[in-house]
Structure formats: C-alpha cells, structure tokens
C-alpha cells in the first residue's frame, strides 16, 4: 500500500496578518506558518492505514522553500519520505494550478491512495483534492469520516448534511479528502524527529502554469459595535426590543 498525503503550509493562527502591498495576499516575510489542520488528520489516517496494512507514506507539499518545514513535521510523525513541489508562484496559485502541480509530482509514484485534508485553513476552496483526482483519472470521495481497506477496495464513510452519512466502496487507486477530527492526532516523538533528519525530501519543479483565478482584493473584515438605548414604558421597550432582535436576526 503506497499512500501519498498532501499537506499544505498555511498561516499560523497566532500570526499577525498584514496584507501585502498589492492587496492580493498576506505579506509573507513577517508571517508565521503551520501545517494545515485538516491535512494533519489526512496524515494521521494515512499513518494508521500503513500501520494496519504495511506500505509507505509519502508527504507532498507545493510551495516555496519554507514549506519543507511542514514536510519535516510529517516525516517526524512517521511519513517515510517527502516530495517538495517547488515554485514560489504556487503561493498565489489557484486550486487548479496547485492540483496540477501536485498531480504531476505524484503521478510517477504510482500510488494506491491519495489523502488530502478536506480543505485548507487559509483559502478553504476544498478543490485541490478533487481536481487532482480528475487529472490523475482516479475516482474520489470527499468529507471522509472512516476508511477501511479490504480486497483491493476501499470502503469509506462520507459525511452528508443534516446528520446523514453515506457508505461508498471505491476501487484503488483512489483519492479521499479527509474530514477533520476523525482520529486522534499523534504527537511528534523525539525518535521521530531524529529519524526525520535522515529521511529524504525530494525536490521537483512545478511546470509554470498561469492561474485562471486571481484574488482581486484582500482585506481584514471590519468589526463595528452599535449601542441603542430603548426608551419608554416597559411594554413599549419590550415590543421595540423584540423588533430589534428580529431585525438583527437573533430571534
């Protein structure tokens, strides 16, 4: 069982966010980054599948040199090797460009299974996984809650809306986008971190493809607070309060 896991490096929640001069993305230079949380669950699922069925887990990330940090984290947690798809332009690439770059890097590996997080914490398109599957000619299933492998097939539980679930069986190779919280994440062990230093991160170049979508303007949402004092008799105030709460869609 050969499993590829796509991990994205996203802005840390602790980071102070500043918009860049063009107003199109976040200023990279003074930001802090971390591994995309949904991808951690994809990685954990891949590691568990490997522990059950044997095989290999390959972590793949696309972006500038700094993304090797998340690959190191994946290696420390137990991925066997990593592929860094290097291209600075991928930071502002759309889902199609990123998916194409990842797909080309993974294609020669001939993997049985590709896992990604459901979506990224920064852009949240939820598209990279499914576009990749399409480009690689693989079936895919999204919002996966449970994965079990048997007889060369994979049976998955998908989360639908309103508390409904769907069980689907897919042939291999296949691509799954993993829902957050489906497993308990392991922590990086000292031995894992030491071993990670000796594991391979292979660099591949992404072919320069132009994004079809671009971000026109990025801005910080503005918060405002309004205070209204209601006056009159208790009955009037109560009536007005109900009215105001209805308008604010609180009730």
């Amino acid at each position, binding site marked *: 069982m050969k499993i590829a896991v796509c991990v994205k490096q996203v802005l840390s*929640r*602790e980071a102070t966010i500043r918009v860049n001069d063009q107003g199109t993305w976040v200023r990279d230079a003074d930001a802090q980054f*971390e591994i995309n949380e949904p991808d951690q669950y994809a990685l954990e699922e891949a590691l568990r599948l490997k522990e059950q069925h044997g095989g290999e887990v390959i972590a793949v990330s696309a972006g500038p040199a700094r993304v090797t940090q998340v690959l190191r984290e994946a290696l420390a947690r137990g991925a066997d090797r990593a592929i860094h798809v290097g291209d600075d332009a991928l930071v502002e690439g759309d889902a199609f460009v990123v998916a194409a770059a990842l797909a080309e890097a993974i294609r020669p590996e001939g993997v049985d299974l590709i896992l990604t997080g459901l979506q990224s914490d920064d852009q949240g398109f939820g598209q990279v996984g499914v576009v990749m599957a399409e480009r690689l000619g693989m079936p895919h299933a999204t919002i996966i809650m449970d994965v079990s492998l048997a007889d060369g097939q994979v049976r998955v539980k998908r989360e639908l809306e309103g508390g409904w679930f769907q069980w689907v069986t897919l042939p291999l190779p296949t691509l799954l986008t993993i829902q957050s919280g489906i497993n*308990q*994440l*392991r*922590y*990086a*062990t*000292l*031995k*894992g*971190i*030491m071993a990670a230093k000796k594991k391979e991160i292979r660099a591949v170049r992404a072919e320069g493809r132009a994004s079809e979508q671009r971000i026109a303007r990025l801005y910080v949402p503005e918060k405002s607070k309004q205070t209204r004092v209601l006056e009159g008799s208790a009955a009037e105030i109560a009536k007005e309060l109900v009215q105001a709460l209805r308008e604010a869609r609180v009730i």
Partner: protein
Amino acid sequence: MSALEVWTFRLLVVVALALFSVQMATRLRLVAAGAQNLRWDRFPERFRQFLVDVVFQARVIRAKPWVGSAHLLVFWGFVAFAGFTAVESLRGLGLLDLTETHWFRSYRVALAPFAVAVLAGILFLLVRRGLFRPPALGQTVSKESILIGVLIATLMVTFLLDLRLEGGAERVNWWVHMLVILAFLVLIPDSKHLHLVLSPVTVFLKSPVLGDVPNLDFEREEVGFETVADLPAKQRLDAFTCVECGRCQEACPAFATGKLLNPKKLILDAQRAMLGGQLDAKLVDVFDDGVLWQCTTCGACENQCPVGIEHVPLIIGSRRGLVSNGEAPDYLGPVFNNLERRGNIWGLTYDQRDKFIASAGVETFDASRHSYLVWLGCAGAFEADYQKSLRALFEILHANGVRFGVLAKERCNGDPAKRTGNEYIFQELATQNAEELRQAGAKKIVTSCPHCLKTLGQDYRRFGLDAEVVHSAVLVSELTSHVHLAKDDEVTFHDPCYLGRYAGHTAEPRALLHRVGAEVKEPVRNRDNPFCCGAGGGLLFEEHESGKRISQERLDQLQATGARRVVTACPFCSIMLKGAQASTQSSTEMVDLISYVNDKLRGEGRGAGG
C-alpha cells in the same frame, strides 16, 4: 591467643572478605556500567547535605523523632566502634596487639556508654519492627532485619561482657563478638543494610536541588530511559542504597489514595531487575502497570528519603523513554500537540491573553522603566478565575509603587512537557522563552504560579536565564510588612508542592495571611511536606484516576481543619480543589492567596472578611 586461634581467625577473615567482595563487586560493576551521571560539583552544598543528613541524621529524625533518634544512637555507636573493631581484628590476625596500650583501655571505657546507647536504640527498633510494624515496613516481619538487629545487640552485649570477663569465658566472648562482625560483613551486601556502606556516598551525590532532572542531550541522541540498561550510575546506586524504610511510600499521595504506584517498590523493582540480569528488559515492564503515569512529581518521596534516593529523575527519565517512542497515555497526545502548535496546554489562541492584558491595563515590559516582569503563564493567559488573582497582584504592585510590565507574547514555560517526559517540546519552549526573557532584559521576574517558579527559576538556568524569579507570595509579603489588620477570619492554607516543598516558601504565605487578619488552621501534611492536589506531572489532564481522587483526599484533609475557607497559591491546585469541591457540593470556599490578601487590604477587612 594461640596459633590455632590466629590461623582460624585469619582463614575466617579471608573467607568473609572474599564473600563480601564478590557480592559488592557485582553491585559496583552494575553501577559503573551505567551512564556516568555522578556529579561532584557544588561541593559546599553537597558537603552540607552529607553533614546534615548523614552525620547528624536530620532527615531520619525530622519525620520520625523517636525512630530517628534510636537510629542516630545506633549510627553513632557504629562509628565509635570502628577503632575497637580494627584493633581487635589486628590482634586476632596476629599482626599487632594494641589492646594493652593505655589509650585503648581508655577508649574501651569511653565506648561503654555508646554500647548502652546502641543497645537501647536497637532494642527499641526491634520491638517496633517485630511487634508494631508500621505498614510501610512491609506485610511480614523481615527475618533479615530481625537477624541483623539481634547481631547488633549481640555485638554490644559481648562488648560489655568483655569489660568484665576473664580467662576462657573471655576467649569465648571474644570469638562470638568477632564472628558476629564477620557474619555481618557477609550479610551486608545482599541486604538493605548495604545502606551502611552506600548511603553516605548516595547522599553526597544527590542533587542539592529537589526533583532535579537534567536536560536530554539531543546531539548525543539521548531519548530517556527505555530499558534497565539505560539507567545511569546514580539511579543504579540509588536502587542498591534503598533501606526499605517505606517513608517514600507513606508520603506518596498516589499510594495513599489506593493507586498501584509505590515509590519504594519502584526502586526495589529496579534493583531486582539489575541483580536478576534483566538489563534488556523495558522499564515499563519492570515496573508495575501504569505506575509511571500515576506520579504527580510532588517530590514527597525524594524529599523524605533519608538515604539520598532521587525518585523524580527516575520516573521522568522513564516517562521520557516512553514519550520518545510515542507511548505516552492517550490524554497527553492533545496536550503535546497543543504545546507544539499553540504554545499552551489548552490549544487556545493568544488573543485571549492580549484581551486580558489590555483590559487590565498592563504595559509591555520595558527594562528601562519597569523593575519587575510579571510572568502570566498559561493559566494567566486563559483561566478566568486565575486572572482575578493576577488583577489583584497588579493592584497590589501599583499600590506599592512597583513598576512592572509583561512580555508582549509568552508561551507555556514547558513544565507540563518537562514533567511528562516530552523533552523535545520542553526544550523548544524553554529555548524560545529564555531567549525572549533575556532580550527583554528582565532582571527580576515575578509569577503567581509555583510551576513557573520552579521551571523559570531552576530549569531555565540551563538555558542561560539568570534573572531572579520570585513567587508573588514572597514579593507581596515583602511589600506589605507594615500591614497589621485585626484578626477577623479563620482559614486553612494548602501549600502547593512547587511552592512549599520545592521552593521552601512556607513562612511567607502564612505571614501574609496572619498580617491581613486570618488565623491559619493547619491541615495534616503542611509546609514543606504538603499532600499534593493531584495536578502535577501532567495529571491535571488525566481523565480517569484510579482509586480515590488525590484532590478529594486533600480537600477532605483541608476541610477537617474546620476552616470554611481554603487559601492556596497555585492556579492548578485551585483547579483541582475546586473540582473536588464541586463534586462533593461542600460549602468550603476556595480563594487564591493574592486575591484574598488584596480584598483584605482594599476593604481593610470588609471585602473578604465576611
């Protein structure tokens, strides 16, 4: 002495020495095979603990004055008899006879009171062990101890008889005395009486700092203790020095609440594994199931130990071996991930801390304007109840003209990672925090959390932080020495382990309480030997505690004082005791020390006096 006697004695001495040496060699070889961690630095402090704990037996006596004093008599008797034994042995071997010299006669007479003292001491100890036997000494009477006790008594009786006897009877008496000594030599190495030989060394080699757990050296690929073979020299020496007195067992909050962990058994299990040649056995298999994760690192065992055994480094070292292999208990996984990703145990984002700082109106630390840096800690950043205590501290500092600031950003100090054996995360956090504290130029740091106190104040020395670190109880106690409010309240005080036992600050909180009009009704286990609240060593996060909950046991002890109000000085003690209180729905009120003091100072007794 006849030639036959001399040759017989020579033969017996050779046999006894050979048996002694063979047994000792086995043990010393095992100690020497461990990684070298025997330290001779800080000589004055080590010499002092040797003097206090070996020569004057302070630790033996402190917890149990009667037993300890009896032991002191036996110990000093043994020392006094060393010369006598040497002279009589030389005579017996036919090498040199000094028994007729003037000084030896005087020495013999002077020894008589010592012999009586030893006899009294050993008879007392024999009766205690044989007839009353406290549970800590084991389920059954140790035959070996009784034998050793009888031998010691025989030595003293034969010595005293020797002062009176003449002729043939004197010879028989002499032989009995010397044979007992030789038997003693043979029996010592394979018994707990090996402490006679080893404990002076073990006490000297014990770290002068309680619960001192050195950093792992990642360059040398150290990952903690995984197998028996990984135990370093001091931990091996500890295992052979154990005198099986069970004081650690009596002091252990986990053992007291029905858990499997017994610090005495832990040490003896390590000893058994080494002597049994199980060097490749995993420590987790050598020790009872799960006990490594039942320790709160309260330090009571180590602090009680009269022979210098360090339990905490053994437990944390063994935890490290597990954590390095991903074998920590499940409940710690999220804690480690939170610490790694968010820099705090709860996995929250630090905007809550920013909001707290902004609403409390605290400035960012600036070395040119502020004399103190207030370290908030995880609890200060996120725990609403504890933030009240910090606001109280800020008010007191303002009122006394102390200029202070806080770091713009803080991470957890790493205590939960250190004590649960996640050395990687600990060193990451400590390196960054120490660097930021150094850059901020903080010379004096004050914290209300005793765990931050120990970690910043001691563990961070190894990361180059040399600022003075004080607990708020100590600083506020210094600032308010002029205050004298009339007595109007009765409280009980729970000493946090990391404040009372580790840092020795037992007088300051009491002085503070007294000063603001509160009489302290002491619970059992107080001051430098408190009973833990159950939070330390990562157990704050444990979901299912076996046996009685430690926090519940402590709350019961505190309530038994009859005081309606429990004052403590640690955010984690607070969380645990409040948890216990909530589940019993008792009416006891929990108050943080600094909040309580500030209310009293502001209201001159009206606020919290009630």
